[in-house]
């Protein structure tokens, strides 16, 4: 018995701008779902990745709270630190996402994805937001641990939703940065080295551990251009109510994620070949 083939409608041939927008949303949903399925089948990475942020909160946070070495005004240091550690754990999840893309290239999966009707930018955005899903799972664990340690966090659902959006945008940017670097260096070992080399500078050149006012001028300037600082500021503002310009924080993160998608998409074919 012969089954009729699905002849594509004419409008599918080359999608309009609106159709590309729908494709983008659909692909982001698809890649996020796949990431959740991966997480469901293997929770070990989620558990092992939780150890480091817990150590930061329990060892570093508790110790520096007693030292009172870092001036954080009326905010206890552990409360001040917790949003920084959430941002850090999201950064650590996302910054090695390029390695996953290189693995997918080496195993042939990327080639198959690239011959599906998925624009390059939609594929990168899908992957980037999938990194966000993983980072959100990580952030939820850190928030729970922080609450158990006595950090005074907000439980306002809208603000918590805002926290998830910030984590996703931050992870999306750093995942795109990682894919962009992968598109330049092309090899897993090189990307691993560069990832390790840039992660700690990104972390230390931000307001995750200490206020920007304490930094020397040159570091302050770097911190101002570091999207991680805006991610931490937004998380602090939403979770513990420290003053920040949320519009600016969200704007910078969204613009950085968009620029990251454009840059990574431009290099995807180079990576695939």
């Amino acid at each position, binding site marked *: 018995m012969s089954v009729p083939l699905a002849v594509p409608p004419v409008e599918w041939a080359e999608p309009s701008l609106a159709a590309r927008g729908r494709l983008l949303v659909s692909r982001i949903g*698809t890649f996020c779902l*796949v990431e959740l399925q991966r997480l469901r089948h293997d929770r070990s990475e989620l558990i092992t990745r939780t150890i480091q942020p817990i150590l930061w909160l329990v060892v570093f946070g508790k110790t520096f709270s007693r030292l009172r070495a870092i001036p954080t005004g009326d905010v206890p240091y552990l409360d001040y630190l917790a949003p920084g550690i959430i941002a850090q754990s999201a950064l650590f999840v996302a910054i090695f996402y390029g390695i996953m893309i290189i693995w997918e290239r080496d195993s042939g999966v990327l080639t198959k994805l690239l*011959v599906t009707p998925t624009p390059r930018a939609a594929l990168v955005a899908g992957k980037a937001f999938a990194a966000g899903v993983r980072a959100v799972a990580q952030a939820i664990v850190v928030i729970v641990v922080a609450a158990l340690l006595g950090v005074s966090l907000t439980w306002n659902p809208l603000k918590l939703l805002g926290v998830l959006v910030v984590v996703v945008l931050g992870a999306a940017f750093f995942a795109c940065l990682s894919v962009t670097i992968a598109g330049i260096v092309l090899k897993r070992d090189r990307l691993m080295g560069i990832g390790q080399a840039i992660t700690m500078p990104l972390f230390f050149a931000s307001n995750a551990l200490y206020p920007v006012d304490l930094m020397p001028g040159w570091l302050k300037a770097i911190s101002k251009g570091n999207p991680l600082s805006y991610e931490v500021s937004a998380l602090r503002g939403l979770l513990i109510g420290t003053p920040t310009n949320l519009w600016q924080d969200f704007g910078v993160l969204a613009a950085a994620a968009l620029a990251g998608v454009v840059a990574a998409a431009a290099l995807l074919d180079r990576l695939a*070949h």
Partner: protein
Amino acid sequence: MTPAIRLAGLSYRFGDHAAVADLTLDVDPGECFGLLGPNGAGKTTTIRVINTMLPVQDGRVEVFGHDVRRQKMGVRRQLGYVPQQLSVEGALTGRENVSWFARLFDVPRRERKARVDEVLELVELGESADRLASTYSGGMVRRLELAQALVNRPRLLVLDEPTVGLDPVARDSVWQRVVDMQQRYDMTVLLTTHYMEEADVLCDRVALMHRGRLRALGAPEELKAALGPEASLEDVFRHHTGDSLGDAEKGGLRNVRATRRTARRMG
């Protein structure tokens, strides 16, 4: 009638090396067409241009009338593609792997589940569909890839050395599925292989390529008959190229090792 694939003067260079040189041929809708030749013949480069992975450098390529240079999305919508490497996501189940591609090809939500079940049954993976793909054998992974490639009911199924690295039983099983599916869906199949005896049995027509150039084109029976009653496709290849397939066999073993490495990496 619009050809399924039209290659007109296709040339592709990697630096100074001409991987494909002035290749011109048509593949008719509904036919099973084989691109044959040893490693380095230009088969995979040709396929990668057809499936939009490589840009058209010179010449013209059309898939069901869609210009590959300008209408990439239109071309991709018509394709099912199985690459040389065993390439499924080992951390997902078989069913999740197929559903993933159903979503990427925009199979409507109301049809998706039935479509996924149908292709999984077709490749006889229905019972193992909810196991992680990392637990599958090489033959099962290849069948899962066929299911992924078919879930959008493509008009053109492109298979790049689909049986490399598989044992004879798994190879027969894969080809049997391909034949079944071609008849069931009335698809055009474009395949590459360096197993001449497989191409002889499966393909309606074959193109023999050597060092980027087309050396012979026609039905296997015609090509063999032109040489003599006892001629094989390998004899035809030797006749047109003055070369044996020794290089292909060496390349084949390299591919087998690469594919097995991939299978090990998947767990």
